[in-house]
């Protein structure tokens, strides 16, 4: 049965090659755009590589402080004191790392000045994230405690700052402070690992940051096992209730959450900083609805093309109907045909998406981008293609099945 459908489908597709080509082109373009978006999202939310342990750690990026009487609220990244005093002693976490957001700094080399991004990170940061070391070594606890002025840079920055020479061991002047390069790591573009230069937190020009509740830090909390995350989330929420500000009269309550990547983005985009629920489900729904919406126009386009095709096939439909095929059988046949075409278009789109991503990586539009189309993206691609096939196939199929056999046999729709 299915074999017959496939044969008919093949014959139909080869009969009018130009239309099939146009059909395929539309399908491929649509799915390609959607696949590129999916791959970028997937790469950001469920990364592999440097942040491959993302399913095992939570991050606390923002603390919301509520003032007396609830009138004033203040959203800020964490201060180091908050991490050191409250988050470091956590029972459920294996490691707690502190890292600042990337800041623009200037590197002075003689009369050359380069603007680069720098993070300050503690030794645990290097254990939570799996940086690929190309040369030299990574900072250790000793570097932190002794306050050594050492720096890790990434490959691109090494090429930019020290062209043609070995970067490790070179001195560099960052914003007026002298550092020595001790390691070179591969470029990465992820939420917590994106930067050009990393230095220990103890190299901050002032020690004032150690007494601050608000600052520029995020905390990464590594669990022993992925299944510990719920317990860790609960503990973070518990800790937030105990937080005392320096001036408890002015600021009474602190709110902070341990977030997975998905939670983090959902919370930020949907402004859920004060609710326990990050709105991750809502976020995914919005993404799905936007994708469906994007498919609407191409689907209409395909519907129009498909309607024309049915009319060409009216005599075939007449014969099928005259020999007793039911409307639902015809609908199923047509929808299957359409889905098959969409799946084939999806495969082409996958190749095209890979091409676009390679171009994106090469163009430097997004620095250090390295996106791979993995199994999950492939699977989402299949789902997208099927949904698209259904969306664009059902109306023409329904119209086709309603044809009057007598009229259809005569070839006049």
């Amino acid at each position, binding site marked *: 049965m299915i074999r017959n459908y496939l044969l008919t489908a093949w014959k139909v597709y080869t009969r009018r090659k130009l239309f099939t080509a146009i059909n395929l082109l*539309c399908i491929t373009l*649509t799915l390609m755009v959607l696949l590129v978006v999916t791959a970028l999202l997937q790469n950001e939310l469920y990364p592999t590589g440097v942040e491959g342990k993302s399913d095992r750690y939570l991050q606390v990026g923002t603390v919301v402080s509520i003032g007396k009487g609830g009138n004033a609220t203040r959203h800020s990244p964490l201060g180091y004191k908050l991490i050191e005093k409250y988050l470091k002693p956590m029972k459920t976490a294996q490691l707690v790392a502190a890292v600042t957001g990337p800041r623009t700094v200037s590197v*002075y080399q003689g009369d050359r000045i380069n603007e680069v991004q720098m993070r300050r990170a503690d030794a645990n940061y290097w254990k939570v994230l799996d940086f690929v070391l190309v040369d030299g070594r990574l900072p250790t606890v000793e570097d932190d405690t002794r306050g050594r002025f050492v720096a890790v840079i990434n490959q691109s920055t090494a090429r930019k700052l020290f062209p043609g020479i070995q970067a490790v061991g070179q001195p560099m002047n960052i914003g007026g402070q002298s550092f020595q390069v001790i390691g070179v790591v591969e470029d990465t573009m992820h939420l917590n690992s994106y930067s050009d230069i990393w230095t220990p937190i103890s190299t901050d020009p002032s020690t*004032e940051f150690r007494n601050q509740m608000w600052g520029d830090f995020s905390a990464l909390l590594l669990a022993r096992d992925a299944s510990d995350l719920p317990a860790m989330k609960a503990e973070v929420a518990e800790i937030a209730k105990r937080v005392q500000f320096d001036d408890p009269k002015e600021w009474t309550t602190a709110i902070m959450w341990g977030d997975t990547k998905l939670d983090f983005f959902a919370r930020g985009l949907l402004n859920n900083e004060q609710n326990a629920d990050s709105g991750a489900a809502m976020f995914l729904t919005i993404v799905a609805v936007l994708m469906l919406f994007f498919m*609407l*126009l191409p689907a209409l386009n395909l519907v129009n*093309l498909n309607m024309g095709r049915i*009319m060409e096939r009216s005599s075939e439909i007449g014969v099928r109907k005259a020999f007793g095929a039911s409307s639902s059988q015809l609908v199923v046949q047509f929808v299957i045909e359409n889905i098959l075409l969409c799946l084939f278009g999806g495969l082409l789109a996958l190749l095209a998406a890979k091409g676009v991503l390679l171009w994106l990586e090469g163009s430097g539009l997004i620095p250090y981008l390295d996106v791979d189309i993995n199994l999950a993206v492939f699977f989402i691609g299949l789902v997208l293609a099927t949904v698209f096939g259904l969306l664009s196939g059902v*109306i023409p199929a329904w119209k086709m099945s309603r044809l009057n056999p007598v009229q259809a046999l005569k070839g006049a729709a």
Partner: protein
Amino acid sequence: MFRHLLKPIWRRKSRNLMLSLEILLTFLVVFAIVAAAGRCYQLYHLPTGFSYDNVWSVQLEQPNEEGSKDGGAIVEKFRRGLQDLPEVEQASLSSFSPYLSATWRSAVNLPDGGKQAETDMLDISDDFFATLDMSVEKGRVFSAADEGAAETAVVINRQLAETLFPGQDPVGKIISDGEPGSEARTMMKVTGVIEDFRNKGEFMSPTNFVLKRFSPVAENAMIRTVLLKVRPGTSRDFELKLSQQLKLIRNDWSYRISPLGDLRKSMLQETLTPLVVLSVIAGFLLLMVAFGLFGVLWQNTTRRIPEIGLRRATGATSADIYRQIIIEQLLLTSLAMAVGLILLVQLPITGVLGQNLDWPLFLGAAATAIGLMALVSVLCALYPAWQASRLSPTEALHYE
């Protein structure tokens, strides 16, 4: 003639409905892009109110934001220290640098509470105007002479002046930043009016603006930036010298030095990138629709070959056929676009988008979008129409 043409369109209404729906959606997408691009063009050609040539910004990053008690005196020390450098022509202070996405919004009232307006604000020192080559339309800029006055001196932009003092001379008027009766409100006296100040640069929507005088003896100052007008031709090497000078003034602060030109470049890029990405995606959509339209029209004409044969046999010339098919397509497109326009015209009528979509922009964008859609549909109809018109009547009548 039109009735004649409308009839075959109406006869195939269910098919044409889908096609029109597609054209309608495409029209909306094209309109949105054209309107967005038009708005960017409009904004780009509005004055920003200042010049970024040879201006550098130094962002001061205090290690501890709280508890900077004698803040005014400290930042004033920075200004003096930098003014002494030979490369610096003029140094001034402001809350934050132009071409950054920082915003400080506040409400200002007339002292009796009569009128209120939301406005952007910035604390600046007296020499800010000279540093950025700004000039006033009315009144004067504030200066050291305003020190110690009961009201803080402010310069406001024309839009705010027209909102608060319609038809009156705003110079010398008093405004305040709190409701009447509230203790902590500051009274401000307007010393001058500028045409506009759009601190986020060329693509910022015009808004109300208050430039408030920063007093060097103030206890708590919201000053985070020193702006320097450097001598023309100062090279980037100056940054190292500047950074050393800054470290001499305060060693435990950190500084971010950038020429305003660089900040402007990244600000422009930040604004344009999403627009470009959206346009590329929309371009793909349009391409697809064009292909689809082409396919559908071709199918339509193929199906109508017997009809065309009949017309040819009864004496219609090939030019007639050509015209018929193209006009039919244009009619269909116009119908869809008319519906689209009825929907879109609600935007400027209700004014949901405010200044972002005024009537000239709406009309311009609508005309461009209509032109584009008409062009695409004619282009898509050309080949099928040409094919149909070439058929000889005998062939057409025999066509199976």
